[in-house]
């Protein structure tokens, strides 16, 4: 049986090996990977892809454990791609997300894959988009993509999913002034976690802060509705609202055709990203080959040439090649 077929049959080991393939940096694997993805794209599933991002320590994995248990309890099949921030000094990484996903990792209706981010910009690893295509073809109802929220990552992460949510902790409302457009623009749902014990009042206050902050965007973008929800991952409260909100947004977006149009926009985004990536790699290769950077930087330091003149000379030279 071919790999694609096995994936469509939902064979766990095949799905896992396919994800390894699309994440591989080896040239041969890249070719194989493209073939596989084109086969799978012809057999789309019905998955809803949901992104969960947020700062470290806010309880993302714990929330996913809690919300995920709730969903599999309702007989949904759940695929999870957890992007783990990896250590940059050594190149190796410790993938510990699963130590916080104890219950759902046991469940036969889940598939959980951790991937080291390898420090790639935006915290999204190479192959995450393809991995979600694999899980979609394998028949999962929901695909969760968990990323660490570090500034620019939200743009990339939000382009991988149908619904992008941001998990925040009580007290984070104070930082809203600093967040500005970026995050609030890309997120569809704000989940205020740790609405439990002593933190309840603080959590409600934070939710109110977010509500007032997003009211500005609501006025401008009538097609999208942004929601702020209060949950406790530990006590597993507020989960009904999360799923209702997700399903509500999906339903509304399907009705007004923005669900599909968003997916086409995302396709555009990735097309341009991939082209950019390839071009960037090519240019980098050219720059390295030309060896001009070292040469000119020495000259700038010696005062033989100004920085601006050097930039112009190098770019002219590269463009003429």
């Amino acid at each position, binding site marked *: 049986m071919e790999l694609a077929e096995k994936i469509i049959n939902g064979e766990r*080991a095949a799905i896992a090996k396919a994800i390894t393939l699309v994440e591989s940096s080896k040239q041969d*694997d890249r070719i194989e990977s493209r073939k596989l993805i084109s086969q799978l794209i012809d057999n789309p599933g019905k998955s809803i892809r949901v992104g969960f991002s947020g700062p470290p320590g806010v309880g993302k994995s714990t929330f996913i454990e809690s919300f995920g248990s709730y969903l599999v309890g309702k007989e949904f099949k759940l695929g999870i791609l957890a992007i783990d921030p990896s250590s940059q*000094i050594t*190149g*190796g990484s*410790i*993938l510990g997300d699963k130590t*916080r996903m104890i219950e759902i990792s*046991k469940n036969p209706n889940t598939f959980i894959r*951790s991937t080291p981010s390898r420090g790639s910009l935006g915290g999204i690893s190479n192959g995450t988009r393809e991995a979600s295509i694999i899980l979609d073809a394998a028949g999962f109802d929901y695909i969760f993509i968990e990323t660490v929220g570090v500034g620019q990552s939200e743009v990339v992460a939000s382009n991988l999913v149908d619904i992008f949510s941001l998990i925040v902790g009580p007290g984070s409302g104070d930082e809203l002034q600093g967040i500005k457009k970026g995050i609030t623009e890309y997120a569809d749902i704000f989940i205020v976690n740790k609405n439990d014990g002593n933190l309840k009042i603080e959590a409600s206050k934070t939710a109110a802060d977010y509500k007032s902050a997003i009211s500005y965007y609501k006025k401008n973008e009538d097609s999208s509705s942004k929601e702020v929800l209060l949950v406790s991952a530990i006590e597993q409260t507020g989960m009904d609202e999360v799923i209702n909100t997700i399903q509500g947004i999906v339903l509304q977006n399907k009705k007004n055709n923005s669900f599909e149009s968003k997916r086409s926009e995302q396709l555009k985004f990735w097309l341009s990203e991939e082209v950019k990536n390839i071009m960037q790699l090519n240019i980098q290769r050219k720059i390295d080959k030309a060896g001009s950077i070292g040469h000119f930087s020495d000259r700038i330091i010696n005062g033989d040439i100004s920085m601006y003149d050097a930039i112009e000379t190098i770019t002219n030279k590269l463009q003429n090649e």
Partner: protein
Amino acid sequence: MTDKFRENFGNWQKSFEKETKQSSVKANSDTDEGIEIKPVYTKDDLKKLSFVEENSLPGQWPYTRGPKASMYTNRPWTIRQYAGFSTAEESNEFYKKNLESGQKGLSVAFDLPTHRGYDSDDDLVMGDVGKAGVAIDTVEDMKILFNEIPLDKMSVSMTMNGAVLPVLSAFVVAGEEQNVKKNLLSGTIQNDILKEFMVRNTYIYPPEPSMKIVADIIEFTSKEMPKFNSISISGYHMQEAGADNVLELAYTLADGMEYVRAAMSKGLNVDNFAPRLSFFFAIGTDFFMEIAKLRAARTLWSKIMKDFGAKNEKSLILRTHCQTSGVSLTEKDPYNNIIRTSYEAMSAILGGTQSLHTNSFDEAIALPTDESARIARNTQLILQNETGVTKTVDPLAGSYFVESLTEELSQKAWEIIQEIEELGGMTKAVKAGIPKLKIEESATKKQAKVDSGNRVVVGVNKFKNPKEPSVDVRVIDNNKVRDDQIKKIEEIKGTRNQKAVEKSLSDLTNAAKENSNLLAYSIEAIKNRATIGEVSKALEEVYGRHFATSLSVSGVYGKHFENDEDFMNVKDKVEGFEKSNGRRPRVLIVKMGQDGHDRGAKIVATSFADMGFDVDMGPLFQSPKDVAKDAIENDVHAIGVSTLAAGHKTLVPELMKSLKELDPNSKMIVFVGGVIPEQDYDFLYKNNISAIFGPGSNIIESAEKVIDLISTNLE
């Protein structure tokens, strides 16, 4: 200071520099505690004492010199050997034999399912029944355990923390049914849950309800069991998990403070329970440091208790049990362990311990045999009867060195205790995971020192024995033990008054809801022949079961090897592997079953990551099936199973079976590390295990072997 002393000191410096060819006298700073050890100490150093009182004598504030005035001159320490063998019958035999050969107290080791509140017939504990101690499911097992041992005369120490309510209840009921009233029972229950969250992981409920249970037991015993020590505040397991002596000292005392607060919050007067608090420390191979630790512990505790407003002198005194270090034992050249244990025992005695367990030399590999247990006990009998150490109290007092070390340890520990206090006490610190992380960092540093050869371990990284002796170890048939226990459970469940059981269990659940003291309710349920598991579940309904999240250190191991050839060689191999395979070698490190000792797993994970591996960490207490699913989904190249509780013979074959079920063509490599007797190697290799790494394995060499195996396997 007299001029004569100055002159002498100046001359000594010159001679020292000449002999050592150094330009100045340098201290040796290579202690785990970060304390500099000077080549010579003088009366100058005594001027710096602030915690230690120079004029104090044994039995006097601040008790640095010992809790009693006469100490061993009047009565030597209690020889108390910790043991438990699979079944109550076997353990009972063993205890009786020991009591005949001069042992004075009993110490019970329970098996892992009992610790975690599971009955032997629970599917979750398949591989753990009878491992690392005795299986107790009902009071009937407890009665067999103490058969023909009069509980009004024998002091019994029980290492129990998680399932502390049902186990203590079973002890009380066993006593009652021997016609011994509970006020006559003497002994100790460990009941120290905080350190479980830090290192040993045999907890059941989350930290807050667990602390409530601790306080319940202190309250109940202070009123009803005056001869029973309600808690043994333990640093032992911290040192075993890799904590240095400052961390062990500070965290243990900080735990103690938290228990005192918990008991006082019940409205108890501090002097009503504080005299029944006892401590438990590990004694490792750093001879003088360990002596100083015990002296410092007493010094600090008296200060702490005074601050709590204790008036009774007995409340101010720290009494402790000690055990020689298990982690210092090596699998290689195992007879060396007898010598290590002897020196450690000597440290404990010179430090003034009240009771002592000496490890058997084969405990790095398995539970002790009769023969090895005899040698361990004789180590103490020789100390007591032949060496003369009992003739003088605190013989090292006044030693410039030992007094300085006592002072420095006190100061350093005091700083950490203040940090914990600022965080709001140990329960909060534990919840935030801070002590656990600090201990893991210390453990990783120690391992790196050994692996890099900076710290010599005789027979392991130097002076290796070319002819490794083979040692006979005790073998346990885990399946038989489990079958027998299941039979007994069925029998009891068939004959007990089911209605009474159900009523007492629901009373217990309600008591938990109403926040009443739980011990009396638990005793009632156990008396009605409810099982340990049923009692634990009745409380789980209210409190839930605790799952720990796990933080990891990184970079600590690698830092010790910046220019190390072997280390760089593995890193290069990893990078080469990534180039030819499109990803880094990926390894899943797991523990299976109820064994919560995760120091080894954590050190392997962080050091492999420092060498460039991608390391998946599994949660604790996984079943082989869960591990297989995790491994397959993450498409790892290899699984490393860490095992310290002898469950490998059941759990590893199960894992191999589950892997094959999920992926018949799986090429995944499985290696095993931890405490594995050589007798089991063949069995494991036959089950397609690719490599076995015993205690004391060099991690860099292990990593190299793993990446070589993975590479060959992929060709």
